[in-house]
């Protein structure tokens, strides 16, 4: 039998990230074994590490379990509609370019219903950081197939296995024009935190895919115990910065590539607007 931890005294020791959390909203909705919380705390640690004042940040999310992050972070934060975080965030960025805009959402939100917005924001090199919690499934709605679900995997809407192939997200991001592209798992917390920090400071469209377990809705149906998923993250991944995104499919049998795929300089959408439209209109 395990013992419960001792109750905290009257003045519980604060958590180092408390200043970035709406503590009055805790407990959060995430299930035990879920990876979203780890991505969220990496994101908060990264924000802190940039030493940029908190009120220069804003977080925008769509709808889903991952998207609930916007409700827990203590900066101006927006929980919008399913798939529409990126265009909402684009409006913020273009109206007030000095803000650091972070989009935090799920794979279904960003790549199924919101896929069109993703490719266009990447094409424009909209200066924002997009963090995608990829749990290979629709978590919030109870485990339906996503655009990232592996072929043959069981979900509530693919009871015989997924007949479709998943997206390779780093390749999609790169091909669409993203200027920073990385992938980590929730087991690689330090790398992930550093990557988010780097992505925030990067000028341009930054995309970080984070592989995260959903033991309730994905693991349970695919004979993957919570620990099995973490073992895959440790044993069946290859860290290789600068790898070709074309070979970045999520295929644990072959090995899943992690690291920074792309880090390039390209003019951002707001810079280009300033240079092309505002200056020319003065003539």
């Amino acid at each position: 039998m395990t013992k419960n931890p001792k109750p905290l005294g009257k003045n519980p020791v604060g958590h180092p990230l408390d200043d970035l959390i709406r503590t009055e909203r805790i407990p959060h909705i995430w299930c035990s074994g879920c990876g979203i919380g780890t991505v969220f705390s990496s994101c908060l640690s990264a924000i802190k590490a940039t030493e940029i004042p908190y009120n220069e940040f804003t977080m925008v999310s769509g709808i889903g379990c991952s998207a609930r992050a916007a409700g827990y972070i203590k900066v101006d934060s927006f929980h919008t509609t399913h798939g529409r975080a990126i265009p909402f965030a684009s409006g913020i960025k273009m109206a007030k370019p000095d803000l650091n805009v972070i989009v935090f959402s799920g794979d279904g939100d960003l790549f199924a219903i919101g896929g069109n917005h993703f490719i266009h924001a990447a094409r424009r090199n909209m200066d924002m950081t997009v963090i995608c919690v990829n749990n290979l499934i629709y978590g919030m709605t109870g485990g339906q197939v996503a655009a990232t679900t592996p072929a043959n995997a069981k979900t509530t809407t693919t009871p015989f296995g997924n007949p479709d192939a998943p997206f390779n997200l780093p390749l999609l991001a790169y091909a669409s024009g993203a200027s920073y592209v990385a992938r980590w798992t929730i087991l690689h917390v330090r790398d992930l935190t550093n990557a988010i920090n780097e992505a925030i400071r990067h000028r341009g469209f930054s995309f970080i895919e984070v592989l995260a377990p959903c033991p309730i809705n994905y693991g349970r149906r695919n004979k993957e115990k919570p620990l099995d998923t973490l073992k895959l993250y440790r044993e069946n991944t290859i860290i290789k910065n600068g790898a070709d995104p074309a070979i970045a499919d999520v295929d644990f049998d072959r090995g899943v590539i992690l690291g920074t795929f792309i880090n390039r300089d390209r003019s951002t959408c707001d810079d280009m607007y300033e240079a092309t439209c505002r200056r020319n209109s003065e003539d």
Partner: protein
Amino acid sequence: MKPAVRTGSYYMTGDVACAEGAIAAGCLFFGAYPITPATEVAEHMAERLPDVGGTFIQMEDEIAAIASILGAAWTGVKSMTATSGPGFSLMMENLGLGVCTETPCVIINVQRTGPSTGLPTQTGQGDMMQARWGSHGDYELIALAPSSPQDCFYHTILAFNLSEKYRVPVLVMADEIVGHMSEKVVIPDAKEIKLESRPKPKGRKDRFKLYEPGPNGVAPMPSIGEGYNVHVTGLTHDERGYPAMDTEEQENMLARIKGKIRNNLDDIIHTEEYMMDDADIVIVSYGISTRTGLTAVDEARKLGYKVGLFRLITVWPFPEQKIHEIASRVKGLITIEINLGQVHYEVERCAHGQAETHLVGSAGGKIIHPDKVVSLIKEVFQP
């Protein structure tokens, strides 16, 4: 930078007048997707906004367009989009987000005939009920209907003023004819244009509640970066803005969203009257159909009928009291609109059997000829 208000007398289209009205009102962000017959609003905004330090962006679709203007609004700027039928349909979900999060913004709908792709280049007024409740759930918003390019200029300014004052998306329900016709538009001196801006919070930031209503029922609204750490969600939320999954908060939220409109009807509802003093037959009309109505009044008067016109500038919220009161003292009410009965049924509801109600409608595509109205008058009323 160039001046936002281009004072002078012009010959311009309704679409361009909407754009000039927006810029005169202080609009600094416009996100849209091209669609006939609203494209010229976007084209003019693209040219004008950089002049005044604003931002134009052509988004990838209308869903993105409305999402972008909501996001921009929270940075503290006034924002707008413009569209027509198919694009208006795509905007519905995020229109609801705007209502639920009490985000000020303006949406111009230069109506064409539907359903579906319909008659893309021809007029219609078939989106009036969609304007009322096209997004899911129950709510109130404000919709105005210009009937000339000059109106387009002023009504767009009015739309911004109402949206800022009441923290609500405001729809400008123009139509293809008003949008594309060129007429004289007088743009006054900047100092003659009265502008409203959203109520701003005062007092301690840590005690601030995002949806705590002010005296007129509208909560002050901070902008991103001001240190209020707001959380904005389309989930049912409490006064702090935090998700609250219970029926009591749902009731509170709806009471606020609906109340701020319903309790300020006198300020929000704008109407105009023509020859109403002795009228016993009243034409109710809005937008381009007002012009059909005005001619019909003159023609019917020549035949000895005492006809007047009651014009809705604000269509939503509906001037229920006023229609009820008019119905109590006249023989009949005739609604003219380019659809087969939308606002007409509202008139019927508010007349409440006190007067006959008739519709002069059309399936769309062109303005309704005044003769149709006069024929109806001759058919059913005695002079």
